[in-house]
């Protein structure tokens, strides 16, 4: 009796502590938003500054970040779409292949890949991929959208793959036998039953990969060339918003170049917050839809 009471007391105490932590972290996140908005407001609402232009020439007084916005988006779109297709292939392989040892190996490899720091990918590409592009294929200096996309695919592939795996494996266990009884081949089961059933969640997984691609700094900084231009092809150099922040952070505070960082920051934060909420919403619908 005594001990039970104690637990209850402890329980409510723990709850209070957890609540405080939740509220604090929520407030902190809110404060980050407020802080960024407060600092970027003057940048957005001053006549003289031209944040929303394509020209970035600090020596001539042009501080437009649209080229970087375009760079980030093209980088994220291309790498997510390619990674997504590869991930679907790997996922079907994991479910359908009869070589279970190979599947186990693939799964552990993907989990291992998720733990590799991006700077390692960047360094490897700097000394292996770039010389190949430059000397082997004669495609400019090698620093390009293409190089960054290649390595970003490696970065976000495990994210999407592991999520797809988590979504489809329980469904497969649930439906495979029934579908087989109805005369579906395993391939048909995957295409006609599993995929349509978790369409929405798969979208959520892709969005999380997209978010990761937008937020990565090291790979575009090391590989994409950081040129402030609109690329005319995948072998042109681009600068992502994240790399832009990393490069300009050291300029003098209060200067216009420095202020453009706040605009970049708020764009990135809003982008990833929206995507995060959307993917949460999509993933959440899975539980509602699941028939029991």
């Amino acid at each position, binding site marked *: 009796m005594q001990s039970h009471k104690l637990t209850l007391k402890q329980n409510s105490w723990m709850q209070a502590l957890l609540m405080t932590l939740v509220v604090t972290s929520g407030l902190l996140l809110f404060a980050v938003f407020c802080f960024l908005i407060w600092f970027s407001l003057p940048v957005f609402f001053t006549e003289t500054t031209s944040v929303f232009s394509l020209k970035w*020439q600090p020596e001539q007084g042009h501080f437009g970040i649209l080229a970087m916005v375009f760079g980030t988006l093209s980088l994220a779109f291309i790498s997510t779409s390619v990674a997504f297709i590869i991930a679907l292939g790997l996922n079907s392989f994991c479910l359908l292949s009869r070589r279970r040892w190979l599947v186990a190996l693939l799964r552990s490899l993907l989990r291992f890949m998720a733990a590799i720091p991006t700077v390692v990918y960047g360094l490897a590409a700097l000394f292996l991929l770039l010389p190949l592009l*430059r000397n082997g294929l004669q495609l400019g*200096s090698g*620093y390009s959208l293409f190089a960054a996309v290649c390595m970003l695919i490696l970065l976000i592939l495990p994210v999407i793959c592991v999520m797809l795996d988590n979504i489809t494996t329980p469904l497969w266990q649930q439906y495979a036998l029934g579908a087989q009884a109805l005369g579906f081949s395993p391939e048909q089961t995957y295409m006609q039953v599993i995929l349509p059933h978790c369409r929405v969640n798969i979208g959520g997984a892709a969005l999380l990969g997209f978010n990761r691609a937008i937020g990565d700094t090291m790979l575009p*900084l090391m590989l994409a060339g*950081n*040129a402030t231009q609109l690329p005319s092809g995948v072998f042109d150099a681009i600068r992502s918003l994240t790399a832009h922040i990393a*490069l300009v952070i050291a300029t003098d505070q209060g200067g216009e170049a420095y202020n453009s960082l706040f605009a970049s920051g708020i764009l990135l934060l809003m982008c990833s917050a929206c995507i995060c909420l959307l993917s949460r919403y999509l993933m959440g619908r899975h539980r509602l839809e699941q028939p029991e």
Partner: protein
Amino acid sequence: MMFKTCSVRLVAIFTLLVSSPLIADELSAFDKMNGQLNIAGGTAHIPVMKKAARQIMGHNPKIHITIAGGGSGVGVQQVAKGLVDIGNTGRALKNKEMNLGLNSFPFAIDGVAVIIHPQNPVDDLSQQQIIEIYQGKITNWRELGGQDRQIHLFSRDEASGTRSVFSKKLLKGAQLAANANIVPSNGAMKTAVSQDMGAIGYSSVGYIDNMVKAPRYNHIMPTQEACASGEYPVVRRLYMNTKGVPNALTQAFIDYIYSEQGAKHIQSSGYIALDAQP
């Protein structure tokens, strides 16, 4: 045998006794000191700082010196906030930065020179040619008497002191082509240019070795001597900056950089030493 070892030892001890006052003269200022000295900022300064730090820490292991890069902008920011004791810049402080209460100590002259791949046959570029290359008007090495190869432009980040000198004194404010690749340090510039036959970049003269080649500029070879005599015009001073009056250890370090040994480190890093300003 025994006698031989003894005599060797004796000679060694004797040499040490005679020579130590000479060697330790400049380092003896650090004898009774301990603590940590943090340095950050310009990447051109790093070779000098490293050599000095190795000597000082070897002389007195109680002193710990950390050296970080980041560029001139980082140097100013961090020293102004008190995060580091010495913030290095490859340019003079701007008025706004002076008002933060910073003291500047110029200690070396450094040239900024164009660098290309060592196997690139081009070995003389005029200022006008360099301006047109960086504006994106000249796009092939053939136009400059080289091989038929596309020119790959490399420039530095916006906070770089090297970039500001290059842009002001060599490009004369000409607009940089938008397709120029940007690298974040002198070292990264050298790596990028040394791997790319079509590359053109620029770096501090102290970073030039056989990995890259510096073509003559208006027929002048960008060497240390040409920088010192003023014959090569694209030069700048390298500064150490402290916030307010430096503490004892920081002051000792600055004095050491200005000493004869410090001048040797500056020389061997490829720069020209300056005397302390009164």
